[in-house]
């Protein structure tokens, strides 16, 4: 129990140093957050860059985004379910089912792309309602419910694609999502809007808090954050705007892939929901202590069902991205390693399997790690077998870090 707190506002004005100290203390206390993912990402990138110079080319960099997009988006949805301490093993095949719905609507029936997208997402919502209701109302463990759904959806995909045919997708809008790029100028415009918007939000918040006499982030810290974002994003946009085509005269290939702004919009949307709305607060509360949430008058069942709905609809979006990238849907869409990669992405990013801790950003960072491993090992010429084993080990490592940091947090809990 240290010194005094209460309305003692004058005593310590927060600075970069004090914020850094607090952060270090949190990390030492077991709250590693995204640190392992960021560190892992740096190490992996350096190793692959040294071993395979092709890794650092602009074309490969752009590939990383389109390769990792589907898994990342599914992982974003999984974060909501993981926050409750539940799991959704069916998210991979749910994305497959939704992609198949999209393909059937577009190719077999011939409806416009927006109808297909809406139907695919609606399918995701229905799946989420069913799974969530079984878990919340009947009380069947989510592991069992979603394992059953995992098998059932595998069959459902087969039914939808007529026992194994490959439905190709030719709709230009859907195909563009994972295969086209923004014009370079638009990329820079998005960059400017994003960085300026982030900076303005941070400044406004700090000013509002300072006006009320609450502890606000110092200008120097805000400048550091905005500066870091500007440098990273600026570098990425510049790199992606380079000419990637081997034969630029025939076909020019440059600009930010369209999936990037899609991922960013989803990231901002869900971060807003989790951090700034009562609904998001209640998700954390149910994940942290469901009984406390119930006594506080929160509809725990409603929260659980909505988390599953969000997860399955994000799986639908992931399915659409996967269908776009492959320009086709077959029985394997969303199958094989997709689900494990997505769970791995969320956990590697720092979302706890025990519930109550995690962010949507974790899914993006973890998704990047998974994509870099797959991409880099592919460049190294390793067969799929090695890739699976390495990814499995990384997932185990991430879950180990999660469990250890929990132990550590428990040990240092009563400071």
């Amino acid at each position, binding site marked *: 129990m240290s010194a*005094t707190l209460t309305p003692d506002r004058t005593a310590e004005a927060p600075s970069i140093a004090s914020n850094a100290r607090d952060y270090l203390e949190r990390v030492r206390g077991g709250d590693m957050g995204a640190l392992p993912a960021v560190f892992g990402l740096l190490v992996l990138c350096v190793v692959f860059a040294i071993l395979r110079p092709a890794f650092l080319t602009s074309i490969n960099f752009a590939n990383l985004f389109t390769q990792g997009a589907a898994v990342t988006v599914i992982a974003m949805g999984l974060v909501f379910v993981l926050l409750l301490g539940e799991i959704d093993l069916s998210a991979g095949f749910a994305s497959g089912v939704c992609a198949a719905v999209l393909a059937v609507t577009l190719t077999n029936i011939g409806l416009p792309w927006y109808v297909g997208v809406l139907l695919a997402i609606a399918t995701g919502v229905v799946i989420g309602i069913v799974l969530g209701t079984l878990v919340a109302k009947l009380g069947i463990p989510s592991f069992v419910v979603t394992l059953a759904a995992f098998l059932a959806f595998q069959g459902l995909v087969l039914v939808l694609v007529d026992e194994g045919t490959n439905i190709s997708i030719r709709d230009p809008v859907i195909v563009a999502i994972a295969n086209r790029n923004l014009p370079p100028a638009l990329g820079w415009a998005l960059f400017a809007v994003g960085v300026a918007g982030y900076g303005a939000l941070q400044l406004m918040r700090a000013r509002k808090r300072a006006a009320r006499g609450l502890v606000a982030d110092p200008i120097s810290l805000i400048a550091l954050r905005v500066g870091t974002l500007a440098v990273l994003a600026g570098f990425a946009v510049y790199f992606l705007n380079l000419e990637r085509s081997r034969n630029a005269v025939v076909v020019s290939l440059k600009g930010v892939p369209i999936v990037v702004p899609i991922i960013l919009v989803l990231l901002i949307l869900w971060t807003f929901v989790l951090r700034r*709305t009562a609904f998001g*607060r209640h998700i954390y509360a149910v994940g*942290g202590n469901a009984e*406390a949430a119930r006594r*506080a008058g929160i509809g725990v069942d409603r929260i659980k069902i909505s988390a599953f709905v969000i997860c399955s609809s994000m799986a639908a979006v992931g399915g659409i991205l996967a269908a776009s990238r492959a320009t086709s849907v077959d029985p394997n869409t969303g199958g094989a390693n997709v689900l494990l990669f997505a769970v791995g992405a969320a956990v590697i990013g720092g979302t706890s399997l025990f519930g109550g801790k995690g962010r949507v950003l974790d899914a993006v960072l973890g998704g990047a790690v998974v994509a870099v491993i797959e991409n880099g090992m592919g460049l190294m010429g390793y067969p799929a077998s090695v890739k699976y084993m390495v990814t499995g080990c990384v997932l185990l490592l991430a879950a180990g870090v999660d469990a250890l940091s929990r132990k550590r*947090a428990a040990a240092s809990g009563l400071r």
Partner: protein
Amino acid sequence: MTPVLELRGIDKSFGPVQVLHDVAFTAYAGEVTALVGDNGAGKSTLVKCVGGIYPIDSGDYLFEGKPVHVNSPRDAAELGIEIVYQDLALCDNLDIVQNMFLGRERRNGLVLDEDSMEELAQKTLASLSVKTVKSIRQLVSSLSGGQRQTVAIAKAVLWNSKVVILDEPTAALGVAQTAQVLELVRRLADNGLAVVLISHNMNDVFAVADRIAALYLGRMAAQVKAADVTHSQVVELITSGRSGELGLKNGSGVTQ
């Protein structure tokens, strides 16, 4: 003075087992009323009846002199009755402000109004002279047992409550933290709340209570001013239901 909370002739059975027999209980604003009794005497049942978790079978429930019907925890909360249970019901992964406003968040349209919540939480803690937490944006997982109890109590006080019922608030605490929490309990009463303190610990009871209500096998053995009884008299009331002139006459359930 009208008591804030008054119960008369409360009966409560679970199936064939009658747990409360004709219990009378009062709590006054500005006073700490200790509710004592051995295990199984019916303390928890009585509190849950007050809190609307169990419906009462018969008897009168008066709030500020007026008869009321409390059928759910929500009814109790609307009257201004808050119960702090022994397990506190805090979310470890949320910070102090978030816990205090859990389920009753203030918002600006769609967005949470963090600043006004933080301000109000700070004000409430300051009014209780809580000085032991470093920052109210600290996660509850990093708090000590006494600090958690403090947060749970502050959460109950935040809603302009009139009656705060504390279930064994010091049971799991060390000496220094117990003293802090008892000080806080006293301060709640001094701020004009009616405080009901359930406790097994006679030292705690005599340290803060103005009145003592002793339950014995589901009957109210006696409700007396703390100044009028001695430590050993209270122990007798708890263990045998009577002490000299005080207490149950031949187990008849007639209270003093």
